[in-house]
Every structure is written in structure tokens, then in C-alpha cells.
């Protein structure tokens, strides 16, 4: 088996894992099960990022999503749903007409997109200045870092303000009223 075959097969397996685990995530009754499947999805996504030469993002994915965000979500589920354990008979709940229509519409969009994505995919984009091997030679994290502190300095600074807003907002909102 050559290198191409290995990479491709790995991709297909991870893609399958991602799809299955995300479907399970969206359908489990118990929010905690959903959260655990979500973590599987995030890890599988990280593997796909690695296959796509995005090492820095893969690591960040594991740390930020699978680590921080899912931790927070699990924590809140425990806090909020401690006594109930799960949400009340979701599957039996009658869907309203609007929900049905919206879901159907989304299904159609999904199918159309799949069809077009597979059949009509064409490289129309302008080629950039960061070929994968050059980036790998310089170091992926280093390249991203140089971009963040160079070209993307302004949004990077604004992102820090965004984090400040997040902190202040979360504290203000969650403050217990006496």
C-alpha cells in the first residue's frame, strides 16, 4: 500500500466516524451522551485537519473544542439537568409544521449541495503563496503565528477585546441576584 492509499483510506474512515458520531450526537436523548459523541466528532475532525496539513489547527481543535468548550458544556449539563437526566421524550414530541418544513428544506439543500459538490467541483480559486511543503518546512504553527501577528494583527487585537466582552458578559449574566 503506498502513501496515497493510506492517507485516503484514513480520510475515509475518519470521515465515516465524523458523520456517524455527529448523527448520534444530534439524535441522542440524553444530553450527556450527545456531549460525549460530540467529543468523538471533534477528535475525528482533528485527524482530518492533520490529513489536510493543518497541524496547528488540529492541536487547537483538540485543546479548544474537545478540551475547553466541551468541558464547559458538560459542566453546564450537569448543573442544569442534574435531577432530570434527560430531556422529556424528544422523539415522541409532535413536530410542528414549521419544523417539519424547515427540516425538509434543509434535507433538500443537503442533497443538492452533495450532488453539486461532488459533480461540479472545480478548482476556480486563485492559488495562494503558501504551498504545503513550504509551510511544513517553515513550521505550520510558525506560519500561522507570523500571519496572526503580521497581516492579521488588527482582527487579532479585536479578538482580544472579544474575549474581554465574553468574560464580562458571562460574569454579569451568571451573577446570582442576591
Amino acid at each position: 500500500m503506498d502513501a496515497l492509499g493510506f492517507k485516503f483510506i484514513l480520510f475515509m474512515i475518519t470521515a465515516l466516524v465524523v458523520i456517524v458520531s455527529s448523527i448520534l450526537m444530534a439524535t441522542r436523548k440524553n444530553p450527556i451522551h450527545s456531549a460525549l459523541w460530540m467529543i468523538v466528532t471533534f477528535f475525528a475532525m482533528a485527524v482530518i485537519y492533520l490529513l489536510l496539513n493543518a497541524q496547528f489547527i488540529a492541536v487547537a481543535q483538540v485543546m479548544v473544542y474537545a478540551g475547553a468548550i466541551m468541558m464547559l458544556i458538560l459542566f453546564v449539563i450537569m448543573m442544569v439537568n442534574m435531577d432530570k437526566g434527560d430531556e422529556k421524550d424528544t422523539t415522541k414530541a409532535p413536530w410542528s409544521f414549521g419544523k417539519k418544513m424547515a427540516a425538509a428544506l434543509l434535507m433538500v439543500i443537503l442533497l443538492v449541495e452533495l450532488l453539486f459538490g461532488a459533480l461540479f467541483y472545480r478548482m476556480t480559486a486563485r492559488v495562494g503563496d503558501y504551498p504545503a511543503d513550504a509551510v511544513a518546512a517553515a513550521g505550520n504553527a510558525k506560519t500561522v503565528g507570523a500571519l496572526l501577528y503580521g497581516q492579521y494583527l488588527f482582527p487579532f487585537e479585536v479578538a482580544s477585546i472579544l474575549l474581554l466582552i465574553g468574560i464580562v458578559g458571562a460574569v454579569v449574566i451568571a451573577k446570582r441576584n442576591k
Partner: protein
Amino acid sequence: MFQEIPSGLCLVLSGIIFSIGAIGAITRRNVIVIFMCIELMLNAVNLAFIASGNAFSSMDGAVFVFFIMTVAAVEAAVGLAIFVMVFRLQGTVNADEVNLLKG
């Protein structure tokens, strides 16, 4: 270097995940699960960015993903605080039972 994974396939995968997330967000009732579905959608977006960036050797996609992750983290912090507040005031986080405002 060996040949890369076709980015058309990655876009298809990202489309599937995005749609699963969107359908989940519309049909589920527990707001925490809805929020997780939205996170899933953001992940699909990240995948699309990474796959496209990789396909035409551009790093802008990766940088954009970095910003999306920042935003997702902030949204998680604020959103979960909001869920806790709603739970304290109304004793539930089911979207159907939180309905003081008609509509």
C-alpha cells in the same frame, strides 16, 4: 509529496456535517443540545476553510479558523451563562417550555 485528498470530498463532508448540525438545531428542544448542534455547524465551516485553504495553498483559511475558534469559545462562555440564568429563572432549558414571550 504524495497527492492530496481531493478537496471536493472534504467540501461534501463539510456539507453533510453542516446539514446534520442545522437540522439538529432546528428539531431539538434542549437548548444545550441546540447549542452543540450549532458548534457542529461551526466545525463544518472550519473543515470547509481548512480543505479549501489546503487545496490552493493559502493560509488565510487556517487563520480564519483560528478566529472562528476564538468566537466559538466566547459564544460558549456567554451562551452557557445565559442557559444557567434561564434555568435559574424558569427551572427548565427546554426550548418549548421557555415561552413567556408569545411567538
